């Protein structure tokens, strides 16, 4: 059943094919032009990740949600499918971003041997995962918001939630500074170098899991 729902969303998304290819090409050109190789995976990951969420708009415009509930698919499966799509898009965005950056840099190095860009693969991977983490945070907030308030209102609510989140993080930071809390930066850096990547991935999994559970709870009680 989930496969059928996935197909529905992928067919809908196929209308984005042309604009996605243009965006990716544009990113490739931007990398060549600016040499800002670390930004490309973040941008591509964000675009692909956000496109996946536009399937909610297709469903809302066609009022498909009501029809889908008449099909032999449980409400949990409907939510699960949206998360599979969102996670898939994030991973695909990350991989695409990474590959395009590597290809673009190699082309540049081949064309301009006098001005070789030394690519730091470790840093590129960290940036890519950082980009994936960012989009997964947005998706994790936005998906339950859409289930609760709909695709249009959900977007506004998401911005409010993100704003609150930033305010809370900034507030905690401010309190730490105000309280003269001594942080051993050297130890923190060492810790982040050792476990940073692992923590990012772990955090992504936890965010998606919590978001999925909240979405299920909202959608199980939702009336179309």
């Amino acid at each position, binding site marked *: 059943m989930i496969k059928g729902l996935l197909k529905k969303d992928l067919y809908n998304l196929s209308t984005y094919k042309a604009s996605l290819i243009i965006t990716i090409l544009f990113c490739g050109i931007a990398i060549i032009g600016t040499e800002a190789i670390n930004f490309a995976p973040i941008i591509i990951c964000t675009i692909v990740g956000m496109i996946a969420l536009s399937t909610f708009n297709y469903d809302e415009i066609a009022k498909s949600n009501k029809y889908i509930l*008449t099909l032999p698919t449980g409400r949990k499966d409907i939510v699960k499918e949206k998360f599979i799509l969102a996670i898939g898009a994030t991973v695909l965005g990350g991989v695409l971003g990474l590959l395009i950056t590597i290809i673009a840099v190699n082309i540049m190095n081949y064309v301009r041997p006098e001005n070789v860009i030394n690519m730091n693969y470790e840093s590129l991977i960290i940036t890519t995962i950082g980009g994936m983490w960012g989009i997964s945070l947005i998706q994790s907030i936005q998906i339950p918001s859409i289930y609760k308030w709909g695709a249009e209102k959900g977007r506004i609510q998401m911005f409010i939630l993100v704003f609150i989140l930033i305010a809370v993080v900034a507030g905690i930071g401010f309190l730490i500074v105000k309280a003269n809390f001594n942080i051993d930066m050297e130890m923190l850096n060492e810790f982040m170098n050792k476990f940073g990547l692992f923590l990012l991935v772990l955090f992504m999994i936890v965010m998606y899991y919590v978001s999925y559970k909240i979405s299920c709870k909202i959608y199980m009680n939702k009336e179309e």
Partner: protein
Amino acid sequence: MKNNIELQNVSKKYKDFTLKNISFNVPEGCVVGLIGENGAGKTTTIKSILNITKADGIVKIFGKDSKENENEIKEKIGVVLDDSFLSDYLTAKQINSIMKDIYKTWDENKYKNLLKQFNLPEDKLIKEFSSGMKMKLKIVTAISHHPKLLILDEPTSGLDPVARNEILDIFREYIQEDETRSILISTHITTDLEHISDYIVFIEKGKIVFHLPTQELLENYGIIKCSQEDFLRLDEKDYIRYQKEKYQYEVLTNNKNRIKQKYNITVIDKPSIEDIMLFYIKGEK
């Protein structure tokens, strides 16, 4: 006779509307028409049957609790909703590919044959279809997995008479193919039901006004057109509603033979389902 749908005291409360204790059955081999004004509760009843909205009361489909056996039941139901379908940016071909993975019993050949029969293009986006073509596609999609029960919400609204007739033919053919099949059809175009329904359920302001065989409605009900003097002779028990017109009274009865015998009134018009519905809504008692 077995029932494909049984509703017992189904109720649903909204801020400004309440569906009150709806109870009726849809027997095997029968077409049941759900009629009523816009906002009377037809769609809420259908949404409650399909568990799209959470309602109180008992809904049994094929003898099983509709909430506990939801997926199993929905595998055997075909649904057409007036205002909801898959995205307009899909094609009929893509719908086939999607439905193959949704229904275990999806019949690709039947779907493709029906598309051909109704001249529906496979590769054209749905958004380019006319209203009639869209509705036909919804119906073709609803019947291509050989459902035992069809639930249709306003399947003929907004269509011209030719398209409506073609669609009614699809339903006739569907019900004739297997005697255990049933159709529950909600509509405010009541003339359609005179041709295909076996029972009529009339809902008004969230309550069932009557649930009767169509034949009984069309044969026993009558409209008496009489003067005020004749109207005053009528016993209140002998009529259901009346309407005072400019020069005469129009009176709806559910037993025209008794009226003929008791009051010696010979001219009693045969009402349509729409006439009966209008008398119940606008008439006085």
